[in-house]
């Protein structure tokens, strides 16, 4: 690793190019087809003006009608070849680019799904989305542009050769102005970009004024502030006008050149070429052919500059994608990872040390044994590491020192799939997927029979409210679906963990959003789930903690005290303090974000009781 950003950038771009190349490799067949079709297309395009010139000179001027017919037929044939060529060339280019885009996106997603928690802890969803969307789009665009640009340069070279063979000076006059078209086009897009950006910003400001005025219209009208808002909008609209006129000035300066520069070439062809004809060194048909060549080159030259800019963007994008693809999952099966032996779910933490990234150690020599079938509550102040303890069991993270064993085997020596199958976890912040309730509960095993789903829901205290819905377990969750309350979502998440029937169950603050008056119902159900199953409970509420056979107080990254809830209440002042603080915190949290749930009656429905207020025709 070097610290020089330019070297890094270069290295990353090079990796980007390699990635693009590797992405097109599987399509060698189409690549060859595309190249051949492109060459045929270019050749056919170059031939048409020559045929037209011959027809004018041999056919029309010398009156050989047979020659004209032959040449017209030849043009039609060449035209057909050109058409087939352009179709194939296009299809090949887009096919390769789209295939590369799709495959890269798939590789990216697959890699992201297998990357360790700490990678995701450090990345932002939005940025990863941009890799899979904008960055890959840039690569697609470049891949489409590259063959087109190559074909354009071959066309240009071909035209130059044909013209030079006829008359080097005329070739210079005819083609001399055209490079300025590329230059102007590049300059124009470079200068237009910031102006357009500024225009977009001003448009966003107009939207902001419009939005806030409409949203706050009662206030605006209530205070008679209409004129003030109109003044503000007028100011923004004026700013939009100014920026739009800036852009118009740039367009006015550049766009007419697109017609002008080729016309200059055509004037030169008429004048100098005309004199060559008068001198007998050129024929009238050549004038026509030269004109057609100039017209042919306008678009390729306008676009020539685009590739340079696009290639730069695409290689940078490729570099960023490569960075993700080159990240190896840190948590993966070891060579020779073992199957999970049968057992009751005995857990042992032996001298476990762990810290997140370069931060301070969170766990500092933690020793803890949990017998198979035992329920243990982990209690401690916020940030003490109790959640971390839970996360080491299914190897969301690996220990830095010491080891964690499940039924006597170091979790790092187990097959990851079997380990995770054996450990069920309910996260603190519930994440449900779009889909039906049934699909969410049966997440671990999509083929689970409906009776298992019902049972899991019942054990999690979710059956009652789910079955009361018109669509029951078929109710859709998600953006356009039913919106469950926080407590209801947590219970679905518990059902999801219960359905997997894990050897070890971890409840990480899993009932925090459940209305306290409902919690006792879940508690009795949870007892049934926990019977004979190793369970780790991380909780704040004493009632939930009391579900455990044993309570472990974690402090300073170690086990500070253990015993039953009652014992600790008596013996440990620290335990009492932590519990009191936690309770207060939980209380504030419930009051803060679930006020509606408490007073509306949680099961009354997640669809926020239509509080349309009075009035309004609805």
């Amino acid at each position, binding site marked *: 690793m070097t610290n020089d950003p330019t070297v890094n950038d270069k290295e990353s771009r090079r990796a980007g190019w390699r990635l693009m190349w590797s992405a097109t490799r599987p399509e060698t067949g189409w690549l060859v087809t595309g190249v051949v079709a492109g060459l045929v297309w270019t050749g056919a395009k170059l031939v048409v003006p020559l045929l037209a010139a011959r027809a004018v000179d041999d056919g029309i001027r010398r009156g050989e009608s047979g020659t*004209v017919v032959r040449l017209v037929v030849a043009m039609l044939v060449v035209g057909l070849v050109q058409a087939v060529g352009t179709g194939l060339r296009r*299809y090949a280019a887009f096919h390769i680019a789209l295939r590369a885009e799709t495959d890269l996106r798939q590789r990216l997603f697959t890699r992201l*799904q297998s990357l360790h928690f700490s990678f995701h802890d450090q990345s932002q969803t939005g940025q990863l989305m941009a890799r899979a969307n904008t960055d890959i789009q840039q690569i697609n665009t470049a891949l489409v542009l590259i063959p087109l640009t190559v074909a354009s340069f071959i066309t240009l070279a071909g035209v130059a050769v044909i013209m030079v063979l006829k008359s080097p000076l005329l070739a210079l006059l005819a083609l001399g102005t055209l490079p300025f078209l590329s230059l102007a086009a590049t300059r124009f897009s470079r200068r237009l970009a910031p102006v357009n950006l500024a225009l977009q910003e001003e448009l966003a400001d107009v939207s902001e004024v419009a939005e806030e005025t409409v*949203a706050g219209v009662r206030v605006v009208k209530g*205070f008679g502030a209409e004129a003030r808002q109109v003044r503000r909008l007028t100011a923004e609209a004026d700013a*939009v006008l100014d920026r739009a006129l800036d852009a118009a000035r740039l367009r006015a300066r550049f766009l007419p050149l697109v017609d002008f520069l080729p016309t200059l070439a055509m004037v030169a062809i008429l004048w100098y070429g005309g004199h060559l004809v008068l001198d007998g060194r050129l024929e009238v048909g050549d004038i026509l052919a030269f004109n057609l060549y100039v*017209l042919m080159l306008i678009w390729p030259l306008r676009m020539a500059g685009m590739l340079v800019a696009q290639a730069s963007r695409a290689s940078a994008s490729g570099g960023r994608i490569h960075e993700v693809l080159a990240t190896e999952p840190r948590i993966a099966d070891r060579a020779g990872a073992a199957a999970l032996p049968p057992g009751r779910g005995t857990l042992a933490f032996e001298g476990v040390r762990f810290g997140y990234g370069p931060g301070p150690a969170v766990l500092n020599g933690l020793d803890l044994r949990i017998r198979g079938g035992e329920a243990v509550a982990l209690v401690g102040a916020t940030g003490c590491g109790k959640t971390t303890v839970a996360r080491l069991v299914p190897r*969301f993270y690996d220990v830095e020192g010491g080891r964690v064993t499940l039924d006597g085997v170091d979790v790092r020596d187990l097959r990851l799939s079997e380990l995770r199958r054996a450990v069920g976890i309910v996260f603190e912040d519930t*994440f449900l997927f779009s889909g039906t309730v049934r699909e969410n509960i049966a997440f671990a095993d999509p083929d689970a029979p409906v009776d298992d789903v019902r049972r899991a829901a019942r054990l999690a205290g979710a059956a009652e409210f789910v079955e009361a819905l018109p669509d029951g377990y078929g109710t859709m969750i998600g953006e356009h679906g039913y919106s469950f309350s926080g407590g209801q979502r947590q219970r679905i998440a518990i059902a999801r963990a219960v359905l997997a029937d894990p050897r070890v169950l971890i409840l990480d603050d899993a009932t925090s959003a459940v209305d306290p008056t409902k919690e006792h119902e879940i508690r009795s159900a949870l007892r049934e789930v926990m019977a004979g199953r190793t369970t780790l409970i991380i909780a704040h509420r004493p009632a939930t903690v009391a579900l455990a056979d044993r309570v472990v107080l974690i402090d300073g990254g170690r086990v500070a005290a253990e015993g039953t809830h009652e014992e600790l209440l008596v013996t440990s002042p620290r335990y009492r303090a932590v519990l009191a603080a936690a309770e207060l915190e939980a209380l504030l949290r419930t009051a803060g974000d679930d006020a509606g749930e408490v007073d509306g009656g949680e099961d009354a429905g997640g669809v926020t009781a239509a509080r349309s207020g009075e*009035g309004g025709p609805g």
Partner: protein
Amino acid sequence: MTPAAADERLSRADASPVVRRLASMLRDRRGELALATAVVVGQTLCLLAGPWLVKRGVDAGLIGDDPRALNVAAVLYLVSAVLGLLFGRWAIWLVNRVGERFLRDLRVRAFRHVLDLGMDFYEREPTGRLVSRLTSDVDIMEQLVSQGLVMFVQNALLLVGAVVAVFAMSWPLALCTLVIVPPVVWVTRWFQRASGRAYVAVRERIGETLTTLQEGLEGVRVVQAFNRQGGFISKFRRTNEAQYEANLEAVRISVRYFPVIELAGVVGIAVIVGMGAYFVDRGTITVGVVLAFVLYLNNLFEPIQQLGQLYNTVQQSGAGLHKILVLLDTPCSVPERPDGVELPRRGDLEVSGVSFGYGDGVTPDTDGVVHPAGPDVLSGVDLTVAAGERLALVGPTGAGKSTLAKLLVRFYDPRRGRVSFGGVDLRDARTSSLRDRIVVVPQEGFLFAGTIRDNIALGRPDADAAAVEAAVDRLGLAGLFEGFPAGLDTEVRERGSRLSAGEKQLVSLARAALADPAVLVLDEATSNLDPGTEQRLEEALDHLTEGRTVVVVAHRLTTAARCDRIAVVDGGRLAELGSHADLVARGGHYARLWRAWDSTAPTGGTAADLP
């Protein structure tokens, strides 16, 4: 090549009125438009002169063996090219300027009109739709003006000009050549439609892929915990491949179109050369005409393709304009009379025989849908609030108490009866005078972009710094705002996300204090505040209401109990009216509620619990 969904297009029936209206809106800009048109015509003529001069050069110069004629043609060609360049620059500038100015005025005009409309309009229109009328529907026209309008006009003129030119040179050859135009037009239209549809599908597929991607990323921890990576990867593969297929379908459409266009170009040259040879042989045309025709062919094909591409943008702009015109045609339900009068400084607020319901069953919304008139929400309400009196409106949700409050500030006009202040019917008052006298403070403190000071000065933009500070002082809030980074000049970001709900309400009270109205209509906040802020709010309210007529829509019985009189609204009628003590003694709705609340709920009952 933006695809247009059905409602983004202008229907044939709407098109001609839209064009007529556009023409009348542009009447003020006749001069500018005429100049712009003249310049575009000039530029087009310069472009069209090229092939004609080539013909002259070839026929007179080369065939006629006359170097002078060749030189003249070349010089004229050069002159026309330079003129074309100058006209071109000027045309773009003129067309953009007239277009952008028109849009600027349209933005302001639409916004002003919307703000003039009554609250019924805002109840009818979904916020999102209304905002998009004011923004994206104009923005789409912006795209046309900036990128397409000049091209559209130029290409249309060029197409017509080229057709005229070829006919003028040789109508028989022109007829032969133009045979290929209809198929090109036809296939171009097919392409526009097919690719439009294909891109709509692509957009949908992209949306699905992104949704799956986002879910896979946000839920990655759960996915891994339950070992479901495989399932998610294959789910992603399905949407990803569907996106690929949709994209490829769009490619297949273009792969059918572009070869046809290229072939048509070659066929055109072949026809001109072939038929040209025949006509030259018969002596009806010259060789130069054949050359000119081949060059004009370019002026036929390019415009057809360009117009095809612009077609969608023009359609969408037309649809956008149509929607804005509908908006501008929406009448105001609470119009200001031209001879509106000033309201007296003080007076009784009087509601007599008022009946009201939402909607008139006549005015369509901006989508052209007429909603049926709602039933009466209030019927036969009589109520007089004396100057300086505090009146609480209580009643269950839907009883009509908020509606009554809205009538007091003329957000709506009653269907029957009248609301007056100091004896003047609110409908006869000047709107500005009405807003000076009667101010409504809504439930939620709504903040606008800008500083806290700007927000307080909302109703009095001309108020100086001292006046704002005095208003803040009067409510005892000076200390509160000093705690902000820049005091009163602190920017509130994103609608005040920096401020707590309570602080926002305090700003909105300060706003009312600065406005200094005779009558305050308050909608009591229902949200829970922390005890400190609650206390502050109560005190500020006490200061604010001092010496004013106050009508409060009460949600808490304690608030109601503190008022001089309480009006119980139930089922759209005034059920009970009197002081707290009176009503409790009378043993009606209010008394029942009060007793229930008093015995069971020490922390606060809500007036909405009324039977």
